[in-house]
Protein backbone atom coordinates (compact mmCIF):
# COMPACT_ATOMS: atom_id res chain seq x y z
CA UNK A 1 0.00 0.00 0.00
CA UNK A 2 1.22 3.52 -0.82
CA UNK A 3 2.43 5.61 2.05
CA UNK A 4 0.98 9.09 2.25
CA UNK A 5 3.18 10.09 5.18
CA UNK A 6 6.67 8.85 6.01
CA UNK A 7 8.53 10.24 9.03
CA UNK A 8 12.10 9.19 9.78
CA UNK A 9 13.95 10.39 12.88
CA UNK A 10 11.55 13.33 12.91
CA UNK A 11 12.23 16.02 15.52
CA UNK A 12 10.02 19.05 16.03
CA UNK A 13 10.50 22.15 18.16
CA UNK A 14 9.38 25.77 18.30
CA UNK A 15 12.31 28.11 17.66
CA UNK A 16 15.09 25.89 19.03
CA UNK A 17 13.37 25.49 22.38
CA UNK A 18 12.72 22.16 23.98
CA UNK A 19 12.16 19.36 21.45
CA UNK A 20 8.51 18.35 21.37
CA UNK A 21 8.74 15.37 19.05
CA UNK A 22 12.04 13.56 19.31
CA UNK A 23 13.37 11.33 16.53
CA UNK A 24 10.01 9.77 15.76
CA UNK A 25 9.58 7.11 13.08
CA UNK A 26 6.19 6.29 11.61
CA UNK A 27 4.35 5.95 8.33
CA UNK A 28 0.71 6.23 7.33
CA UNK A 29 -0.90 4.26 4.53
CA UNK A 30 -2.88 6.00 1.86
CA UNK A 31 -6.63 5.69 2.44
CA UNK A 32 -6.33 4.91 6.15
CA UNK A 33 -8.17 6.50 9.06
CA UNK A 34 -5.79 7.44 11.85
CA UNK A 35 -6.34 8.81 15.34
CA UNK A 36 -3.52 10.50 17.19
CA UNK A 37 -4.05 10.80 20.92
CA UNK A 38 -1.96 12.06 23.78
CA UNK A 39 -2.12 14.19 26.90
CA UNK A 40 -2.44 17.96 26.65
CA UNK A 41 0.90 19.45 25.62
CA UNK A 42 2.21 16.11 24.39
CA UNK A 43 2.72 17.46 20.85
CA UNK A 44 -0.40 16.26 18.98
CA UNK A 45 -1.21 19.64 17.42
CA UNK A 46 2.49 20.30 16.83
CA UNK A 47 2.75 17.09 14.83
CA UNK A 48 -0.35 18.03 12.83
CA UNK A 49 1.12 21.48 12.09
CA UNK A 50 4.25 19.86 10.78
CA UNK A 51 2.14 17.72 8.44
CA UNK A 52 0.79 20.80 6.65
CA UNK A 53 4.14 22.57 6.74
CA UNK A 54 3.38 25.26 9.33
CA UNK A 55 6.24 23.91 11.43
CA UNK A 56 9.36 22.63 9.72
CA UNK A 57 11.28 19.61 11.10
CA UNK A 58 14.50 20.54 12.89
CA UNK A 59 15.88 17.08 12.29
CA UNK A 60 15.09 14.00 10.26
CA UNK A 61 12.77 13.66 7.33
CA UNK A 62 9.03 14.16 6.88
CA UNK A 63 7.46 13.31 3.54
CA UNK A 64 3.77 14.14 3.03
CA UNK A 65 2.09 13.26 -0.27
CA UNK A 66 5.52 12.80 -1.85
CA UNK A 67 6.78 16.23 -0.72
CA UNK A 68 9.76 16.41 1.66
CA UNK A 69 8.84 19.10 4.18
CA UNK A 70 12.30 19.70 5.63
CA UNK A 71 13.53 22.81 3.82
CA UNK A 72 10.54 22.77 1.47
CA UNK A 73 10.14 25.72 -0.91
CA UNK A 74 7.01 27.85 -0.66
CA UNK A 75 5.83 26.83 -4.13
CA UNK A 76 6.10 23.12 -3.28
CA UNK A 77 4.39 23.73 0.04
CA UNK A 78 1.53 25.54 -1.73
CA UNK A 79 1.29 22.62 -4.14
CA UNK A 80 0.97 20.17 -1.24
CA UNK A 81 -1.51 22.30 0.68
CA UNK A 82 -3.77 22.51 -2.38
CA UNK A 83 -4.28 18.76 -1.97
CA UNK A 84 -4.88 18.84 1.78
CA UNK A 85 -8.05 19.46 3.74
CA UNK A 86 -7.42 20.96 7.16
CA UNK A 87 -9.87 21.29 10.03
CA UNK A 88 -8.65 23.53 12.81
CA UNK A 89 -9.68 23.54 16.44
CA UNK A 90 -10.47 27.25 16.16
CA UNK A 91 -12.16 26.77 12.73
CA UNK A 92 -10.06 29.47 10.97
CA UNK A 93 -12.92 30.81 8.88
CA UNK A 94 -12.54 34.15 7.12
CA UNK A 95 -14.83 36.39 9.15
CA UNK A 96 -15.58 38.88 6.39
CA UNK A 97 -16.69 36.16 3.96
CA UNK A 98 -20.04 34.38 3.90
CA UNK A 99 -19.95 30.70 4.79
CA UNK A 100 -20.61 29.92 1.12
CA UNK A 101 -17.45 31.80 0.11
CA UNK A 102 -15.49 30.17 2.95
CA UNK A 103 -16.36 26.74 1.59
CA UNK A 104 -15.43 27.89 -1.91
CA UNK A 105 -11.89 28.87 -0.84
CA UNK A 106 -10.02 25.64 -1.72
CA UNK A 107 -12.01 25.35 -4.95
CA UNK A 108 -11.02 28.89 -5.97
CA UNK A 109 -7.38 28.18 -5.08
CA UNK A 110 -7.46 24.97 -7.12
CA UNK A 111 -8.92 26.84 -10.08
CA UNK A 112 -12.25 25.04 -10.34
CA UNK A 113 -14.82 26.43 -12.76
CA UNK A 114 -17.58 28.60 -11.33
CA UNK A 115 -20.41 26.18 -12.04
CA UNK A 116 -18.51 23.22 -10.58
CA UNK A 117 -17.64 25.32 -7.54
CA UNK A 118 -21.26 26.36 -7.00
CA UNK A 119 -22.60 22.81 -7.37
CA UNK A 120 -19.99 21.43 -5.00
CA UNK A 121 -20.70 24.14 -2.40
CA UNK A 122 -24.46 23.56 -2.63
CA UNK A 123 -23.98 19.84 -2.16
CA UNK A 124 -21.65 20.31 0.83
CA UNK A 125 -23.96 22.83 2.47
CA UNK A 126 -26.70 20.21 2.21
CA UNK A 127 -24.44 17.58 3.75
CA UNK A 128 -23.52 19.75 6.72
CA UNK A 129 -27.17 20.85 7.10
CA UNK A 130 -26.40 24.53 6.60
CA UNK A 131 -28.05 25.21 3.24
CA UNK A 132 -30.36 27.81 4.77
CA UNK A 133 -27.37 29.66 6.29
CA UNK A 134 -25.34 30.02 3.06
CA UNK A 135 -25.35 33.83 3.06
CA UNK A 136 -24.51 34.25 6.74
CA UNK A 137 -21.12 35.23 8.13
CA UNK A 138 -19.14 32.91 10.46
CA UNK A 139 -19.70 35.04 13.56
CA UNK A 140 -23.47 34.73 13.06
CA UNK A 141 -23.21 30.95 13.55
CA UNK A 142 -22.74 28.79 16.65
CA UNK A 143 -19.43 27.00 17.32
CA UNK A 144 -20.86 23.71 16.09
CA UNK A 145 -22.14 25.29 12.90
CA UNK A 146 -18.80 27.00 12.27
CA UNK A 147 -16.98 23.69 12.66
CA UNK A 148 -19.39 22.13 10.15
CA UNK A 149 -18.51 24.92 7.70
CA UNK A 150 -14.81 24.23 8.32
CA UNK A 151 -15.44 20.55 7.66
CA UNK A 152 -17.28 21.33 4.42
CA UNK A 153 -14.35 23.53 3.35
CA UNK A 154 -11.88 20.72 4.09
CA UNK A 155 -13.88 18.30 1.94
CA UNK A 156 -14.69 20.71 -0.90
CA UNK A 157 -11.83 19.87 -3.26
CA UNK A 158 -11.69 16.10 -2.58
CA UNK A 159 -8.26 16.26 -0.91
CA UNK A 160 -5.91 13.28 -0.70
CA UNK A 161 -5.47 13.86 3.01
CA UNK A 162 -7.61 15.46 5.70
CA UNK A 163 -5.90 16.70 8.85
CA UNK A 164 -8.30 17.47 11.70
CA UNK A 165 -7.23 19.01 14.98
CA UNK A 166 -9.74 18.09 17.68
CA UNK A 167 -12.63 18.68 15.28
CA UNK A 168 -15.33 17.91 17.84
CA UNK A 169 -13.56 19.43 20.85
CA UNK A 170 -16.29 21.77 22.04
CA UNK A 171 -19.23 20.59 20.00
CA UNK A 172 -22.67 19.27 20.93
CA UNK A 173 -23.53 15.64 20.18
CA UNK A 174 -25.45 16.49 17.01
CA UNK A 175 -22.61 18.46 15.41
CA UNK A 176 -20.00 15.95 16.61
CA UNK A 177 -21.87 13.02 15.06
CA UNK A 178 -22.35 14.94 11.81
CA UNK A 179 -18.61 15.58 11.61
CA UNK A 180 -17.64 11.97 12.33
CA UNK A 181 -20.12 10.81 9.69
CA UNK A 182 -18.60 13.18 7.12
CA UNK A 183 -15.05 12.03 7.91
CA UNK A 184 -16.04 8.38 7.76
CA UNK A 185 -17.93 8.98 4.50
CA UNK A 186 -14.92 10.66 2.88
CA UNK A 187 -12.67 7.81 4.00
CA UNK A 188 -15.02 5.06 2.86
CA UNK A 189 -16.33 6.52 -0.39
CA UNK A 190 -13.46 8.70 -1.62
CA UNK A 191 -10.61 6.72 0.00
CA UNK A 192 -9.36 9.97 1.53
CA UNK A 193 -6.69 9.51 4.20
CA UNK A 194 -7.93 10.98 7.46
CA UNK A 195 -5.73 11.96 10.41
CA UNK A 196 -7.56 13.16 13.50
CA UNK A 197 -5.90 14.55 16.58
CA UNK A 198 -8.19 14.01 19.54
CA UNK A 199 -8.40 13.28 23.24
CA UNK A 200 -11.10 10.65 22.83
CA UNK A 201 -11.79 8.22 20.02
CA UNK A 202 -15.57 8.06 19.52
CA UNK A 203 -17.17 4.74 20.33
CA UNK A 204 -19.47 4.97 17.34
CA UNK A 205 -16.71 4.56 14.71
CA UNK A 206 -17.82 2.28 11.88
CA UNK A 207 -14.63 2.29 9.80
CA UNK A 208 -11.36 0.52 10.60
CA UNK A 209 -8.81 2.88 12.03
CA UNK A 210 -5.29 3.00 13.34
CA UNK A 211 -4.40 4.61 16.64
CA UNK A 212 -1.14 6.38 17.41
CA UNK A 213 -0.30 7.74 20.83
CA UNK A 214 2.19 10.48 21.62
CA UNK A 215 4.07 10.37 24.88
CA UNK A 216 7.39 11.90 25.94
CA UNK A 217 8.08 13.08 22.39
CA UNK A 218 7.67 9.65 20.90
CA UNK A 219 4.90 8.36 18.61
CA UNK A 220 3.81 4.76 18.99
CA UNK A 221 1.07 2.78 17.32
CA UNK A 222 -1.48 1.40 19.80
CA UNK A 223 -2.46 -2.09 18.79
Amino acid at each position, binding site marked *: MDKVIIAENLSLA*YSNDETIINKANFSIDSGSFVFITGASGSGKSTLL*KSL*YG*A*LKPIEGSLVVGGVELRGVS*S*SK*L*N*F*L*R*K*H*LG*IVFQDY*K*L*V*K*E*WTIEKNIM*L*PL*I*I*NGYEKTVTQNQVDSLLKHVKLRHQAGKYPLELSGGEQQRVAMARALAHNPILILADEPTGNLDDYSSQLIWNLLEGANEQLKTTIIVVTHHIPETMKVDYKHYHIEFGDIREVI
Partner: protein
Amino acid sequence: MKSFKNHLSLVIALLSILFSLQVFTIVERAIDAYKENLAKNYALVVVAQKRVDVDKLLEKSELIASINEISPDSIITKLNSGISKQNIALLKVTLPKFYKVKLKRYPSPNELEKLTKLLLRSQSIEKVEAFSKTHDTTYKLLLLFKTVISVFAFTVIIVTILLIFKELRIWQFKHNERMSIMGLFGAPVWLRSAVLFRLAIVDAVIASILSFVIFSYLSSLSWIEEQFSNIGISIVLFDKIYDFLIMLGVSIVVSMLLATFIVLGHKEEV
Protein backbone atom coordinates in the same frame (compact mmCIF):
# COMPACT_ATOMS: atom_id res chain seq x y z
CA MET B 1 -20.95 51.87 5.88
CA LYS B 2 -18.22 49.44 6.97
CA SER B 3 -16.92 49.26 3.41
CA PHE B 4 -16.95 53.07 3.18
CA LYS B 5 -14.89 53.30 6.40
CA ASN B 6 -12.44 50.71 4.99
CA HIS B 7 -11.68 53.05 2.13
CA LEU B 8 -11.91 56.43 3.86
CA SER B 9 -8.62 56.51 5.76
CA LEU B 10 -6.39 55.64 2.82
CA VAL B 11 -8.39 57.82 0.44
CA ILE B 12 -7.93 60.85 2.75
CA ALA B 13 -4.20 60.19 3.07
CA LEU B 14 -3.83 59.84 -0.70
CA LEU B 15 -5.93 62.97 -1.23
CA SER B 16 -3.59 65.06 0.89
CA ILE B 17 -0.56 63.79 -1.08
CA LEU B 18 -2.27 64.61 -4.38
CA PHE B 19 -3.37 68.00 -3.06
CA SER B 20 0.20 68.93 -2.03
CA LEU B 21 1.53 67.70 -5.34
CA GLN B 22 -0.96 69.73 -7.38
CA VAL B 23 -0.42 72.87 -5.27
CA PHE B 24 3.30 72.49 -5.87
CA THR B 25 2.68 72.07 -9.62
CA ILE B 26 0.49 75.19 -9.70
CA VAL B 27 3.16 77.23 -7.90
CA GLU B 28 5.82 75.93 -10.32
CA ARG B 29 3.66 76.90 -13.28
CA ALA B 30 2.91 80.32 -11.80
CA ILE B 31 6.60 81.00 -11.14
CA ASP B 32 7.54 79.87 -14.65
CA ALA B 33 4.85 82.10 -16.17
CA TYR B 34 5.97 85.02 -13.99
CA LYS B 35 9.60 84.45 -15.03
CA GLU B 36 8.54 84.43 -18.66
CA ASN B 37 6.79 87.76 -18.11
CA LEU B 38 9.86 89.17 -16.42
CA ALA B 39 12.05 87.98 -19.27
CA LYS B 40 9.80 89.77 -21.75
CA ASN B 41 10.25 93.04 -19.90
CA TYR B 42 13.88 92.55 -19.02
CA ALA B 43 16.88 93.53 -21.10
CA LEU B 44 20.56 94.33 -20.61
CA VAL B 45 22.03 97.51 -21.99
CA VAL B 46 25.39 97.20 -23.70
CA VAL B 47 27.59 100.23 -24.33
CA ALA B 48 30.19 99.96 -27.11
CA GLN B 49 32.67 102.39 -28.60
CA LYS B 50 31.97 101.28 -32.12
CA ARG B 51 29.28 99.28 -33.88
CA VAL B 52 29.37 95.61 -32.78
CA ASP B 53 28.83 92.53 -34.89
CA VAL B 54 25.39 91.50 -33.66
CA ASP B 55 25.46 88.05 -35.32
CA LYS B 56 28.78 87.22 -33.65
CA LEU B 57 27.39 88.21 -30.25
CA LEU B 58 24.25 86.15 -30.82
CA GLU B 59 26.43 83.11 -31.47
CA LYS B 60 28.28 83.62 -28.18
CA SER B 61 25.36 82.77 -25.89
CA GLU B 62 22.24 80.71 -26.27
CA LEU B 63 20.57 82.86 -23.64
CA ILE B 64 20.44 85.91 -25.92
CA ALA B 65 17.19 86.24 -27.85
CA SER B 66 17.90 89.47 -29.76
CA ILE B 67 20.24 92.47 -29.86
CA ASN B 68 18.92 95.78 -31.08
CA GLU B 69 20.74 99.06 -31.34
CA ILE B 70 19.21 101.88 -29.38
CA SER B 71 18.86 104.99 -31.52
CA PRO B 72 20.85 107.97 -30.07
CA ASP B 73 18.14 110.40 -31.31
CA SER B 74 16.25 110.52 -28.05
CA ILE B 75 19.43 111.41 -26.12
CA ILE B 76 20.38 114.05 -28.65
CA THR B 77 16.90 115.56 -28.61
CA LYS B 78 17.30 116.16 -24.89
CA LEU B 79 20.57 117.96 -25.48
CA ASN B 80 19.84 119.83 -28.70
CA SER B 81 18.89 123.17 -27.21
CA GLY B 82 21.35 125.67 -28.60
CA ILE B 83 23.48 123.11 -30.46
CA SER B 84 24.11 123.62 -34.09
CA LYS B 85 23.16 121.01 -36.70
CA GLN B 86 26.82 120.39 -37.51
CA ASN B 87 27.62 119.75 -33.86
CA ILE B 88 24.62 117.43 -33.56
CA ALA B 89 25.90 115.45 -36.54
CA LEU B 90 29.34 115.29 -34.92
CA LEU B 91 27.79 114.23 -31.62
CA LYS B 92 25.94 111.44 -33.41
CA VAL B 93 29.25 110.05 -34.68
CA THR B 94 31.16 110.38 -31.44
CA LEU B 95 28.46 109.08 -29.08
CA PRO B 96 28.99 105.47 -28.00
CA LYS B 97 26.67 102.80 -29.42
CA PHE B 98 23.90 101.52 -27.15
CA TYR B 99 22.40 98.06 -27.57
CA LYS B 100 19.41 96.44 -25.96
CA VAL B 101 20.03 92.72 -25.33
CA LYS B 102 16.82 90.73 -24.87
CA LEU B 103 17.04 87.26 -23.30
CA LYS B 104 15.17 84.06 -24.05
CA ARG B 105 14.32 83.49 -20.41
CA TYR B 106 14.74 85.09 -17.05
CA PRO B 107 18.31 84.23 -16.00
CA SER B 108 19.61 83.25 -12.60
CA PRO B 109 22.14 85.69 -11.00
CA ASN B 110 24.92 83.26 -11.95
CA GLU B 111 23.87 83.10 -15.57
CA LEU B 112 23.61 86.87 -15.65
CA GLU B 113 27.10 87.29 -14.26
CA LYS B 114 28.52 84.84 -16.81
CA LEU B 115 26.74 86.62 -19.65
CA THR B 116 28.01 90.03 -18.53
CA LYS B 117 31.60 88.73 -18.45
CA LEU B 118 31.13 87.12 -21.83
CA LEU B 119 29.90 90.36 -23.38
CA LEU B 120 32.69 92.38 -21.80
CA ARG B 121 35.22 90.07 -23.42
CA SER B 122 34.26 91.61 -26.74
CA GLN B 123 36.81 94.35 -27.50
CA SER B 124 34.37 97.06 -28.56
CA ILE B 125 32.05 96.60 -25.55
CA GLU B 126 32.89 98.93 -22.70
CA LYS B 127 30.07 98.48 -20.29
CA VAL B 128 27.21 96.11 -19.67
CA GLU B 129 24.32 97.28 -17.49
CA ALA B 130 22.46 94.23 -16.18
CA PHE B 131 20.34 96.01 -13.53
CA SER B 132 21.52 93.16 -11.34
CA LYS B 133 20.35 94.61 -8.03
CA THR B 134 16.71 94.68 -9.07
CA HIS B 135 17.12 91.42 -10.90
CA ASP B 136 18.64 89.64 -7.90
CA THR B 137 15.91 90.83 -5.54
CA THR B 138 13.14 89.62 -7.85
CA TYR B 139 14.88 86.35 -8.52
CA LYS B 140 15.51 85.68 -4.84
CA LEU B 141 11.91 86.51 -4.01
CA LEU B 142 10.73 83.96 -6.53
CA LEU B 143 13.17 81.39 -5.15
CA LEU B 144 12.02 82.07 -1.59
CA PHE B 145 8.39 81.66 -2.59
CA LYS B 146 9.16 78.39 -4.33
CA THR B 147 11.18 77.11 -1.36
CA VAL B 148 8.41 77.96 1.11
CA ILE B 149 5.84 76.11 -1.00
CA SER B 150 8.21 73.16 -1.48
CA VAL B 151 8.84 72.90 2.27
CA PHE B 152 5.10 73.08 2.90
CA ALA B 153 4.33 70.39 0.30
CA PHE B 154 7.18 68.21 1.55
CA THR B 155 5.96 68.51 5.17
CA VAL B 156 2.43 67.54 4.17
CA ILE B 157 3.76 64.56 2.22
CA ILE B 158 5.91 63.41 5.15
CA VAL B 159 3.00 63.71 7.62
CA THR B 160 0.78 61.85 5.17
CA ILE B 161 3.32 59.07 4.72
CA LEU B 162 3.45 58.68 8.50
CA LEU B 163 -0.35 58.46 8.48
CA ILE B 164 -0.16 55.88 5.72
CA PHE B 165 2.26 53.79 7.77
CA LYS B 166 -0.21 53.87 10.65
CA GLU B 167 -2.90 52.81 8.22
CA LEU B 168 -0.55 50.07 7.05
CA ARG B 169 -0.49 48.56 10.53
CA ILE B 170 -4.28 48.55 10.67
CA TRP B 171 -4.43 46.93 7.25
CA GLN B 172 -1.82 44.39 8.24
CA PHE B 173 -3.87 43.42 11.28
CA LYS B 174 -7.08 43.33 9.24
CA HIS B 175 -5.78 41.29 6.34
CA ASN B 176 -3.26 39.05 8.11
CA GLU B 177 -5.81 36.51 9.26
CA ARG B 178 -7.41 36.09 5.84
CA MET B 179 -4.01 35.88 4.14
CA SER B 180 -2.84 33.24 6.64
CA ILE B 181 -5.97 31.15 6.14
CA MET B 182 -5.62 31.34 2.37
CA GLY B 183 -1.97 30.36 2.72
CA LEU B 184 -2.92 27.29 4.75
CA PHE B 185 -4.97 26.11 1.78
CA GLY B 186 -2.11 26.64 -0.64
CA ALA B 187 -3.05 29.99 -2.16
CA PRO B 188 -0.05 31.52 -3.92
CA VAL B 189 1.11 34.95 -2.72
CA TRP B 190 -0.57 36.82 -5.59
CA LEU B 191 -3.95 35.27 -4.78
CA ARG B 192 -3.58 35.89 -1.03
CA SER B 193 -2.75 39.52 -1.73
CA ALA B 194 -5.28 40.04 -4.53
CA VAL B 195 -7.91 41.58 -2.25
CA LEU B 196 -5.34 43.92 -0.78
CA PHE B 197 -4.07 45.09 -4.15
CA ARG B 198 -7.61 45.48 -5.46
CA LEU B 199 -8.48 47.62 -2.43
CA ALA B 200 -5.31 49.68 -2.95
CA ILE B 201 -6.11 50.30 -6.62
CA VAL B 202 -9.75 51.15 -5.90
CA ASP B 203 -8.66 53.66 -3.20
CA ALA B 204 -6.08 55.18 -5.56
CA VAL B 205 -8.72 55.63 -8.26
CA ILE B 206 -11.23 57.12 -5.78
CA ALA B 207 -8.61 59.58 -4.47
CA SER B 208 -7.62 60.59 -8.01
CA ILE B 209 -11.24 61.12 -9.06
CA LEU B 210 -11.93 63.20 -5.95
CA SER B 211 -8.82 65.31 -6.65
CA PHE B 212 -9.96 65.68 -10.25
CA VAL B 213 -13.34 66.99 -9.11
CA ILE B 214 -11.81 69.36 -6.53
CA PHE B 215 -9.21 70.85 -8.89
CA SER B 216 -11.61 71.03 -11.83
CA TYR B 217 -13.93 73.06 -9.61
CA LEU B 218 -11.12 75.27 -8.28
CA SER B 219 -9.78 75.94 -11.77
CA SER B 220 -13.23 77.02 -12.91
CA LEU B 221 -13.49 79.68 -10.18
CA SER B 222 -13.21 83.15 -11.70
CA TRP B 223 -11.85 84.52 -8.42
CA ILE B 224 -8.70 82.41 -8.71
CA GLU B 225 -8.23 83.35 -12.36
CA GLU B 226 -8.56 87.02 -11.34
CA GLN B 227 -5.80 86.68 -8.75
CA PHE B 228 -3.40 85.38 -11.38
CA SER B 229 -4.35 88.01 -13.94
CA ASN B 230 -3.76 90.66 -11.25
CA ILE B 231 -0.07 89.73 -11.28
CA GLY B 232 -0.14 89.53 -15.07
CA ILE B 233 0.03 85.81 -15.61
CA SER B 234 -2.28 83.24 -17.04
CA ILE B 235 -1.61 79.57 -16.35
CA VAL B 236 -3.37 76.21 -16.62
CA LEU B 237 -4.31 75.50 -13.01
CA PHE B 238 -5.37 71.95 -13.72
CA ASP B 239 -4.79 70.05 -16.95
CA LYS B 240 -7.68 67.62 -16.98
CA ILE B 241 -5.77 64.90 -18.84
CA TYR B 242 -2.08 65.38 -18.04
CA ASP B 243 -2.51 66.34 -14.37
CA PHE B 244 -5.15 63.67 -13.80
CA LEU B 245 -2.87 60.98 -15.23
CA ILE B 246 0.00 62.18 -13.00
CA MET B 247 -2.31 62.08 -9.96
CA LEU B 248 -3.58 58.62 -10.86
CA GLY B 249 -0.03 57.37 -11.36
CA VAL B 250 1.22 58.79 -8.06
CA SER B 251 -1.72 57.49 -6.02
CA ILE B 252 -1.51 54.02 -7.60
CA VAL B 253 2.25 53.83 -6.93
CA VAL B 254 1.81 54.96 -3.28
CA SER B 255 -1.06 52.58 -2.53
CA MET B 256 0.63 49.66 -4.32
CA LEU B 257 3.77 50.29 -2.26
CA LEU B 258 1.60 50.20 0.85
CA ALA B 259 0.05 46.89 -0.20
CA THR B 260 3.48 45.48 -1.09
CA PHE B 261 4.84 46.40 2.37
CA ILE B 262 1.95 44.51 3.94
CA VAL B 263 2.49 41.46 1.75
CA LEU B 264 6.23 41.46 2.46
CA GLY B 265 5.65 41.96 6.19
CA HIS B 266 3.12 39.13 6.35
CA LYS B 267 4.19 36.21 8.50
CA GLU B 268 2.41 32.91 8.56
CA GLU B 269 0.90 31.93 11.87
CA VAL B 270 2.39 28.86 13.53
